[in-house]
């Protein structure tokens, strides 16, 4: 097996020639002993796509209920039943209030993910969205993972399409990437046996794209999965993106005005072991975080963005991640509870100033974006001459051509 694996030098050549990497290539990258070589190669791709431009947004996270019928082994957030200690379900007023209290410096995006609560009517969710839009008409609602959409479909006897259309009608703008975990059934059946399968997840995103919704994708790594499983996961996402891009391009070239959705960003998420069913496992280390970012950037040649999610890795490692393939730090978050529950030491929110500083210290150019990666504010480059990396004048397109074709 090992001797059939391509060498790192061959992969380097392929990447520089813009060729697509194979599963075997992915394995070589995960096994390459020299982390910095993998990072440097991913950085080449990142700089080819984005130069020094590095994105963040002003977002806010909300979990309206942590009651969940599923029992994912890695989850420290969900409480099985309504009245268990620590369980909490917000009333609609409480949920809306969370946004209202932030209206003095309102976020541009609201990111809502929840447990799979068996006792709420579907109208709870549609009302929830409508209420948010009432408070702030132009807020971007990025709500409900594919796992929740799948649950809604099953629980309320609807198709994915019906669920998505009804939620869109109520104000839903795009889907977050959570719930992907590891697609491979060998792993998924052990860590998340009672929720959407990998295929279900991909199908929800497929339908969402067809309906013109943008979505994100994630991977929860560093628990019981192997490198093969990670590579498999990345390739499944790449496959879906190929399909969605092809449809989007076809639609665009037919002169159709029908918008098409694609996967915008990939976000690798590190498993955190506290307070969940896998607490005996060690958490993945920073070196694994950086390598996974880099390999993701290299394998996912049809994704425009790869995010270093600072909540998962901590702001320091996320900053290093900006040299290992990531071009996005996610956002201000304000209020994160899921990783907190799993023992993460990251702060629960960062200010815009913090994010700008993190990006500048890495020698990059901070760009505040909206959820669809439209530029809100462009900052200038680091004001710290010696902290910045070499002063480069990289020519990078503002957006990948694919997005230009589809979104604009």
């Amino acid at each position: 097996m090992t001797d059939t694996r391509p060498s790192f030098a061959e992969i380097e050549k392929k990447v520089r020639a813009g060729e697509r990497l194979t599963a075997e290539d992915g394995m070589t990258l995960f096994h390459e002993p020299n982390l910095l070589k993998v990072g440097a190669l991913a950085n080449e791709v990142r700089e080819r796509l984005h130069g020094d431009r590095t994105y963040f947004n002003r977002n806010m996270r909300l979990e309206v209920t942590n009651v969940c019928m599923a029992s994912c082994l890695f989850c420290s957030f969900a409480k099985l039943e309504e009245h268990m200690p620590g369980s909490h379900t917000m009333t609609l007023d409480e949920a809306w209030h969370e946004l209202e209290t932030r209206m003095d410096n309102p976020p541009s995006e609201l990111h809502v993910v929840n447990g799979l609560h068996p006792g709420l009517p579907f109208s709870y969710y549609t009302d929830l969205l409508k209420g948010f839009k009432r408070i702030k008409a132009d807020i971007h609602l990025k709500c409900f993972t594919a796992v929740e959409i799948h649950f809604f479909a099953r629980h309320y006897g609807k198709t994915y399409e019906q669920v998505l259309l009804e939620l869109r009608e109520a104000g839903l703008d795009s889907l977050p990437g959570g719930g992907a975990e590891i697609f491979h059934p060998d792993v998924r059946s052990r860590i998340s046996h009672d929720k959407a399968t990998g295929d279900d997840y991909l199908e929800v995103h497929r339908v969402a794209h067809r309906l013109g919704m943008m979505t994100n994708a994630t991977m929860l790594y560093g628990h019981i999965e192997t490198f093969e499983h990670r590579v498999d996961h990345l390739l499944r996402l790449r496959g879906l993106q190929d399909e969605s891009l092809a449809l989007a391009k076809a639609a665009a070239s037919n002169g159709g005005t029908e918008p098409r959705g694609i996967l915008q960003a990939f976000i690798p998420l590190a498993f955190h072991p506290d307070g969940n069913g896998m607490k005996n496992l060690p958490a993945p280390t920073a070196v694994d975080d950086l390598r996974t970012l880099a390999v993701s950037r290299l394998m996912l040649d049809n994704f425009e963005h790869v995010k270093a999610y600072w909540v998962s890795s901590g702001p320091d490692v996320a900053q290093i991640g900006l040299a290992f393939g990531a071009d996005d730090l996610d956002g201000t978050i304000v209020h994160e509870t899921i990783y907190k529950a799993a023992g993460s030491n990251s702060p629960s929110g960062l200010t815009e100033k913090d994010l700008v500083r993190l990006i500048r210290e890495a020698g990059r150019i901070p760009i505040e974006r909206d959820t669809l990666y439209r530029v809100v504010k462009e900052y200038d480059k680091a004001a710290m001459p010696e902290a910045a990396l070499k002063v480069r004048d990289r020519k990078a397109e503002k957006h990948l051509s694919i997005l230009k074709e589809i979104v604009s």
Partner: protein
Amino acid sequence: MSERVSTKLRVSAVEYLNAQPLYLALAGNPDVELDTALPAEVARRVAEDETDLALMPVAAAATIGDLRLVRGMGICARGKVRSVVIVSERPLEELTEVSLDLSSRTSVVLARLVIRHRLGGKEPKYVGRVAADAIASIGGTTGAVVIGDPALRIEGKPAYTLDLAEAWREWTGLPFVFAAWFGRPGALDAAQEAIIQKAKVDGMARRDEISDAWAKANGRDELLASYRSYVHDTIRYDLGDEEAQALARFYEEAHKAGLLPKAEVRFFDQDRDDVASGSKPAQRQSLDTLLGRAADGERLSAAEGERLVAEAELFDLGLAADAVRNRKHPHDVVTYIVDRNVNYTNVCTTSCRFCAFYRPVGHPEGYVLSREVLGQKLQEVVDAGGVQILLQGGLNPELPIEWYEDLFRWMKKEYGLGLHALSPEEILHIAQMEKLSTKTVLERLRAAGLDSVPGGGAEILVDRVRRKIAKAKCTSEDWLGVMRVAHQMGLRSSCTMMYGTVDTARDRIQHLVKLRDLQDETGGFTAFFCWDFQHESGVRIEAGDHGTMFYLRQQAVARLMLDNVAHVGASWVTQGPDVGQVALRFGADDYGSVMFEENVVSSAGTTFCTNAGAIEARIHGAGFRAVRRNVRYDWLNEPS
């Protein structure tokens, strides 16, 4: 230098007899600010931008790097120089040991090159000694390199005298250039250069007067004639094409032998000619070449270090540092130590602006740990399989040296742990308080159980920076001086750098060069650690350059500059265990300490805790095997 108001040319010169004819006529010139000092101090002023032009030894100029020369003059010799010699009772081939006066790097490098050449690569043992000790050591198969006045004084007395300039000429057919006028590119315009040229003409005419005055001032009337002929006939003050070629040859040989950074001979007027003719400046080495040389472990000049900081990409620095680490420690093993940091008192008279830990004398929160508390802490270390205590504290005026001696004896007797204790600042404090020499203090403490000296408090070894962040702290020279004494006694120490206050890239490189210079002398530093100033309330200074990426770059550059320090440790205590792990791929081969109680850092808000299992997991995760070590970096078990 924006702080400067004066437009006068700041000129520094070595205060030796042979230099005076070149600079003495500058005294009183209204356009010139002249000062004189010992060679090391002159070099420091150039490196730290405190002077514009310096008459300085050529080796020091190579260490700074990328300097320009004034054409036409230097302190040179064609044949005998008389003042730079190897003297011995037996012929060179029979010598087993040669004493070196380490204050003169140019002479030391020349001596080593000549010896290698004469003995076909064979070398005796070199021992660094101050001038008087070096002369005293001559006898049997021990010789000494003797420099300057002492050399003239013992002229003709010892059985064997090898004149090094003459030996160089026999070898290369070239003259030798000992010193010349150097400055940073653009430091001097044509009009100013003319002033320097004119001073030489005046000085040449005053040579008798100068040498007579020197003899008188030094009470050496008997050497009057000798001095006169020395500055008239022996020393040549012209630096022509042949001398320039000779200097280039010296730089090349020294670089080949690994004794000096790669250096070029380039004159101020060449830069000016390039500008005037609009031609491209002389070919600079490419960044890739520089990175390649760094990765190969070549000695880098300060200028080259600065260039790496300013221009090299993160990954290139990391890969080069990783290559150096891999060559120095080829087993892919990362060490760590199980120890504990105990701060025995927080009472301190210094009040550094970056310190949130100290309390002034009499403050209700001030403490001195009791034996009881200490004993409990030490027992915990013993129980956890720890091997060492790192003991540091504030500068508490109420603790006499006997207090430390008793404490050390008690700790050694009861717990038997390694004692890595008292940074230079504390040693100096005790010495001052007790009116004892540093050496005596160290000797007494060693007798009481001191095993090694921690390298804390180095901050940035540039006094301009030190004065701003910690007025009352010891000077750079003081800090290095304590380490020199400790190393000469056979004690080992670590060395550190705390950056990120008012320091610039040049300051940080200069810090590394100072550590490297002392290491050349003593070899006493075991390891280097760096971290950024931890900003927090209670601290009265703004944070400067910092950040995680910056830390990784800084550590990588340190690994590349400190070619003579064996180990570089990741500072996970300040940077966090995650960044500490990543740092293992940026040149570090050590993960520091497992047990943690570092109040000076932790009261500034940085508190990280980890245990041996977690440390080993991280070491493995970074692709290394892990092994426990002691303070001398001996492996205590098999790596796993």
